[in-house]
């Protein structure tokens, strides 16, 4: 065995690892004749001893007990947490399904209600209605409570839900809302509305009424009637009056008509 060969096995020799008997005896023989390799072996053995001392010195070291407590806590939390996402998912699925069902039912009801409301005006046209000059009679079709809103600062104009212009114009001359009417008949009275013609605002003329837009129900101080050339009863100066504002597609107010509820016995 030469020094190079010895050097390659010196580590394993010093570690006391299993070696071929022949190789081992050759290594021992080599160290007896080579001072450098004998010194290398001695160093390797001392290094081995130092490493083992270090390993023995650290053998008692371990993680703190608080670490175990934390891990056990994490383990328990994991036990609790794992099923939760499943139940949450199920709950979400159920909620979604119920919401979808409600939406479907609501859509069907709305669709049927719309169909029935399209049929009723034709029936209502023949019904005798009190008609005044410059006024058209309209029965309130909207079953919902009016959600009202201020239009501008300083004024207490209140809006009702918007309706299509074409439908609203058609409602001028005919009664609306057979369902409400039925219920009102049961209450031994019928509420109706009397409305003026649309009065143009600004430079709008009557032909542009057909351009489309929406009608917005508002409430105005009665005093505002004067600005449209309508006589105002000063005794009821502070009262409010309902009005429909025709709003064009670009959002500007085009025309206004005043509406008055009329109770019929």
């Amino acid at each position, binding site marked *: 065995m*030469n*020094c*190079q060969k010895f050097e*390659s096995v010196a*580590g394993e020799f010093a*570690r006391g690892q299993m070696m071929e008997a022949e190789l081992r005896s050759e290594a021992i023989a*080599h160290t007896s*004749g*080579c*001072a*450098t*390799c004998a010194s290398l072996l001695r*160093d*390797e053995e*001392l*290094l*081995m001893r*130092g*490493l*083992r*001392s*270090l*390993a023995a*010195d*650290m*053998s008692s*070291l*371990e*993680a*703190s007990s608080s*670490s*175990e407590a*934390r*891990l*056990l806590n*994490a*383990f*328990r939390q*994991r*036990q609790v947490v794992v099923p939760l996402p499943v139940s949450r998912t199920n709950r979400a699925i159920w909620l979604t399904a119920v919401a979808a069902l409600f939406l479907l039912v609501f859509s069907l009801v709305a669709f049927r209600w719309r169909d029935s409301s399209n049929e009723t005006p034709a029936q209502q046209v023949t019904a005798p209605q009190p008609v005044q000059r410059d006024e058209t009679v309209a029965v309130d079709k909207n079953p919902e409570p009016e959600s009202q809103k201020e239009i501008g600062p300083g004024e207490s104009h209140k809006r009702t839900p918007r309706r299509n212009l074409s439908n609203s114009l058609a409602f001028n001359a005919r009664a609306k809302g057979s369902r409400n009417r039925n219920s009102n008949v049961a209450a031994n009275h019928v509420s109706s509305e009397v409305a003026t013609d649309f009065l143009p605002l600004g430079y709008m003329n009557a032909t542009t009424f057909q351009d489309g837009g929406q009608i917005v129900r508002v409430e105005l101080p009665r005093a505002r009637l004067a600005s449209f050339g309508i006589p105002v009863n000063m005794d009821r100066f502070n009262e409010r009056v309902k009005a429909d504002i025709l709003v064009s597609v670009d959002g500007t107010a085009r025309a206004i008509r005043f509406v008055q509820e009329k109770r019929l016995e």
Partner: protein
Amino acid sequence: MTGKDRPGRQFSMKPKSDLTDSELLCLMLSGDEDAFSLLYRRRQGGIYRFALQMSGSQQVAEDVTQDVFIFLIKDGHVFDATKGSLSSFLFGVARNYVLRRFRGDQSTVPFADDEDDQPFDPMCDEPGPLDDLTRAETIENVRRAVLSLPERYREVVVLCELQELSYVETAEILGCAIGTVRSRLHRARALLLAKLKPVPESVEQSSAGVETVRCFA
């Protein structure tokens, strides 16, 4: 999964302390807290010491140990018994966490890799630790010398020499060939010897290196 196949039923015949690591892991993954506790107590020491010997920091060792077992709690199912022992698996995970720490926090690494060829001289004015230092001093010097090794050499020294794992286990943990482990360990021991040997004054004073005399007897 039928009741017959459930791990708790499968291993209920043996006391838990007699179960193998893999069996305990199986129980643990089915929610058995005792199995987890037993597995932790069985393996945490080795993992903690490995992390401590690799990093030289108790805080890092604590954190790494905790991270390893949290990983086991969350992703223990990825362990494949056909690829090696659970112990090797845990050491492999610990190694990844330690290396991640080194990448993220350079202050944890006591010595940079490029210093590996510089002689480690813990006490220039004292005799060499391999000769006549006290045991405690020797241990401290060896510990510092190990920590000063580059990562690839340090980990084989820690696993093979300090954790006393076999080359096969070390190769499993490092994901390399046994021959690579052997050669790295050989190189690591040479580096350790160089670091622990006292530097002769004559060599220190002269800029020329020592010419190695090798006999070819």
